[in-house]
């Protein structure tokens, strides 16, 4: 089996579990929407701030939801020696990393579509620069998923996993948040030049994060 086939296998496994359990769709997705509502309550829709800060709020909501998705991705392997099974499966560590990251990215992308509709409807933002939104969105989501899986496996199997992962992941995702927010801001303002420049920054970060994950995941999984 090639690396890609193995990665697809792992991603399909995680997505099949999600299709049965529907934890991300019935718990994480509503959580993301609730975060959007909370921002609206905190910032008062009548002051006109929401459309201006919408891209930032959107990505903060995505980041917070991603923590739950990452936590879930490792929780499904916590019982019945599933993680040992994965370790002993003979699959390449890099493939496991890519597969798990892809599964999280797919789930987050579905969540983002719903949140983006929420932003357009609730925050009174006009959809513009859709090409940038799609490309920057996919790249940033991939980077977030890759970072989540790399740090998720660091904390996998620990009793303090739920509290440790946010502390490890959130500071390190700062550049992604920065890039994605700026790209979305410029795209929604129809200023496509800077929007693509920020997207290229996200592309660079995504490449680095995937490389780091591919290089480190196998060793980390051994100790998890």
């Amino acid at each position: 089996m090639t690396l890609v086939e193995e990665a697809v296998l792992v991603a399909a496994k995680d997505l099949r579990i999600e299709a049965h359990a529907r934890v991300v769709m019935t718990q994480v997705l509503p959580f993301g929407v609730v975060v959007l509502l909370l921002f609206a309550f905190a910032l008062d829709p009548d002051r006109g701030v929401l459309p201006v800060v919408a891209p930032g709020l959107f990505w903060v909501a995505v980041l917070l939801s991603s923590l739950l998705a990452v936590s879930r991705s490792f929780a499904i392997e916590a019982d019945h020696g599933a993680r040992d099974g994965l370790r002993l499966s003979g699959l390449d560590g890099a493939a496991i990393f890519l597969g798990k990251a892809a599964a999280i990215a797919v789930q987050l992308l579905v969540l983002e579509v719903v949140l983006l509709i929420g932003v357009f409807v609730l925050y009174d933002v006009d959809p513009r620069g859709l090409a940038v939104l799609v490309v920057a969105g996919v790249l940033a989501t991939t980077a977030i998923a890759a970072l989540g899986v790399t740090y998720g496996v660091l904390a996998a199997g620990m009793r303090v996993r739920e509290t440790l992962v946010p502390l490890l992941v959130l500071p390190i995702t700062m550049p992604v948040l920065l890039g994605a927010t700026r790209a979305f801001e410029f795209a929604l303002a129809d200023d496509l030049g800077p929007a693509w420049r920020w997207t290229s920054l996200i592309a660079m970060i995504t490449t680095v994060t995937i490389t780091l994950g591919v290089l480190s995941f196998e060793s980390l999984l051994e100790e998890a």
Partner: protein
Amino acid sequence: MTPARQRALGVATLLALGAFAVLALLISPKDSRHGDAVRLLYVHAPTAWTAYLAYVVAAIASAMWLWPRTRRPSWDHLAGAAAEFGVLSTGLTLFLGSVWAKESWGTWWQWEARLTTTAVLFFVYLGYLALRRLGGPGAERRNAIAALLAVVQVPIVHFSVTWWRSIHQEGSVFNQRGEVEINDATMQWALWSGVIAFTLLFLWCCLLRMRTLELESSAAETALDAAIRERVGTVNA
């Protein structure tokens, strides 16, 4: 390092800190614009230097642990000791930088690239220390990889923040207002003696902390051995 050499390093550190205090507080003149507040920079700059030095040392020590030929527990201890000093230094840098910002720019915080990068790093390494505290089997490998992951992120964080700021404001605040020109010879001496004193302090603290980490792990092993002996004793009885 032998205890005698370690003690000598300790004495050298204390002497350097003493000389630094005299130079920075008594001999060097006030700044024409910022008065005595300029003395904050004599500590601020050295703590920033030792913070970054500590993170580089932690990364190198982690790489040495990961490399099978050089793998020794002392590399893991050095990484831990350096990172702890790094976080303390970063905290001090941010605090003193903030006080300095209030004095020179009239505000406690500026979203300036260097400051923001340092703040993010503070939390990145706080996470690393939290991870280290967990210990357990395989902790050394986990710690080493986490330290390398953290250090690779430093340029990315800095680059993205610099890009962000360069688009949002004209130039850096350091160049607009509040820039201090340390041309005076005694002021330069004060600054450099600070760098030397804090570097020595870093080395000394690292050695002391490595020793306590070593003792901690050998104490844990002794306790485990004792527990096994006790268990075996009961079984045999």
